[in-house]
């Protein structure tokens, strides 16, 4: 038998977790419940009166073409961010894994972007890509002759926030891919090499399948990131514009609630987002534990 410390008091454990519970209650459950109840009310912009309206806010929401467009925009945006940051993260990780000497240096350098706050990352990309003062933007117009203007064109704006958002996430993906690759025994790669598989085939048939749990995990993390954590980037770079072309769901919550002062709709949008998080997290746990793992 393992000896454990033994406390007589029945209340001590509860006392010990009390601070954590208070914090969670105050900063998560209470606002969540507030939001949930708010979503069933219509209030006037000055918060004087409110009226219980059942699911009116939700019905309005899902019949609002702007909201439906925002959903599409969000999906396009997050798929693009995930695709760019996963593929570049994977690519850089496989390169870094081969370059033996500089490995440690490369790793450290590549991790840094992750430490940059989203808003700052947004500003940096703005400095690069803003049509009037962005260094790269001027270059694009000058040398490539593309009429680059994210302030006017929705497509360009989307490209810009995808880059700004993916850039930060590449380093996150890189770290996980790198760790995943180092966990693959070198002999597996060599066994494939001696059987005649070139570098690409080795990657495709050996490394990639063995990285699939990592890949799946990162896909989920990247989607969560682009759904919910890119607010700072949108806010500094495009403010959802031009013409709502980069108005993704989290940003729309803010705009409708705090700028448009439509608190009921904003609350309903928050509830929708929250349900999304719950669903994604649930799926992630289910799949990560069952599907994508190999024994031995």
């Amino acid at each position: 038998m393992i000896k454990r410390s033994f406390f007589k008091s029945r209340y001590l454990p509860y006392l010990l977790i009390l601070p954590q519970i208070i914090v969670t209650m105050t900063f998560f459950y209470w606002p969540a419940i507030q939001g949930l109840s708010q979503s069933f009310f219509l209030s006037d912009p000055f918060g004087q009166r409110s009226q219980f309206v059942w699911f009116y806010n939700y019905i309005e929401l899902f019949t609002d073409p702007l909201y439906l467009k925002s959903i599409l925009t969000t999906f396009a945006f997050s798929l693009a961010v995930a695709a760019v940051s996963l593929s570049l993260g994977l690519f850089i990780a496989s390169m870094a894994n081969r370059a033996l000497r500089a490995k440690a240096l490369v790793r450290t350098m590549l991790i840094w972007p992750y430490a940059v706050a989203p808003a700052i990352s947004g500003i940096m990309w703005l400095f690069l890509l803003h049509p009037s003062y962005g260094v790269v933007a001027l270059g694009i117009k000058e040398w490539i002759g593309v009429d680059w203007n994210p302030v006017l064109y929705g497509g360009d704006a989307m490209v810009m926030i995808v880059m700004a958002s993916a850039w930060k996430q590449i380093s996150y993906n890189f770290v996980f891919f790198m760790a995943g690759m180092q966990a693959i025994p070198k002999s597996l790669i060599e066994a494939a090499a001696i059987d005649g598989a070139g570098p690409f085939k080795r990657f495709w048939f050996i490394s990639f399948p063995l990285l699939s749990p990592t890949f799946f995990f990162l896909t989920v993390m990247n989607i969560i990131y682009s759904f919910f954590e890119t607010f700072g980037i949108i806010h500094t770079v495009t403010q959802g514009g031009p013409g709502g072309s980069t108005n993704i769901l989290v940003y729309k919550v803010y705009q409708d609630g705090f700028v448009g002062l439509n608190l009921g709709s904003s609350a309903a949008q928050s509830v929708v987002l929250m349900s999304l998080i719950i669903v994604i997290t649930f799926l992630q746990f289910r799949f990560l534990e069952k599907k994508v793992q190999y024994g031995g």
Partner: protein
Amino acid sequence: MQESGKDSIDLSVHNATKNFGDFVAVDSVSFDVEKGKFFSILGPSGCGKTTLLRMISGFIEPTVGSILIKNQDMAGRPPNQRPVNLIFQNLALFPMMNVAKNIAFGLERQKEKKAVIDKKTEEILERVGLPGFGEKKVDQLSGGQKQRVAIARSLIMKPTVLLLDEPLGALDLKLRDQMKVELKTLQNQVGTTFVYITHDQSEALVMSDHVAVMNNGIFEQVDTPQNLYAKPATPFVAQFVGENNKWEITIDKVSERKALGITKEGFKFSMPLEENLQNDDILQFFLRPESILLQPDPSIRDLNRFFVSVKTILFDGANSRILALLPQSRREIQISLPQNRQFDHIKIGDKIEAGWNPGSAITFPQEKVVA
């Protein structure tokens, strides 16, 4: 090794050397392996075996020296363009593929037709004693079965030389003994040249036609298992291959017809007469436990006879030993204890007679200690 025609040499290593920085992992190693032979490289962990094997397979290039397979210089050729295959220390089966996919991997890379691949896979599975195992997942296999799948995956590529890096290391003792025999039988059947590395002398002795004993990056001796055991060329081989009692002795007296050895404690015995034996020579003296007879028949002549006191009995079936003390000294000596019931009466503390024929000992000049 006997000289034979060049065509019969599958693998020829000349002067192969590998440096890692200042460290010499493999130092001027040369050997030939004839077609269809089972050649083992035996040495303690870290002596450079894997490094040598990786040079032959092409994963690393030798710093100096050359490697020829079927008289073709392999310099600069990547592993997949050499007629070799390698079974890794950890087997390196692909965990996400089933058995058939693992085995077919190389043929698929060669764009072989599917029907041909399926047929060959089935054949080779049968050959290694796993018919119908194609659909099994790798992690459903036992240690011995994984072993065979790894062998099948390598053999299906029809290598001229199959390299094996301690493939039995992960198996338990009983299975290892069984796989030794199977591997040897399989090698006989397919006729592929095997180069097998191991730190386990019994694996090397049981399976091999020739064994190279490796230590600190050099080959100490290349010979048949019998010769390694009976005529070790260096003190290292004498100690590493089989058990040996090792003493440091001084030559006490040399006459026309007789030499005496004397241990530090003053135990004297007669030595085989060798030409260049000088008085006061210091020698390393090796005597196998089974060379020492217990209670030798008085009719046997010319034995070094003496009494020992039994300190411990190490029972280990056919390998049983007595740990005994030499007369008037605290020096321990191992003596084989045959389990034919003749010696059942021996107890700890007994004084019993033992003896050995001077000719069965092996001696080497004392190594010069370089300061």
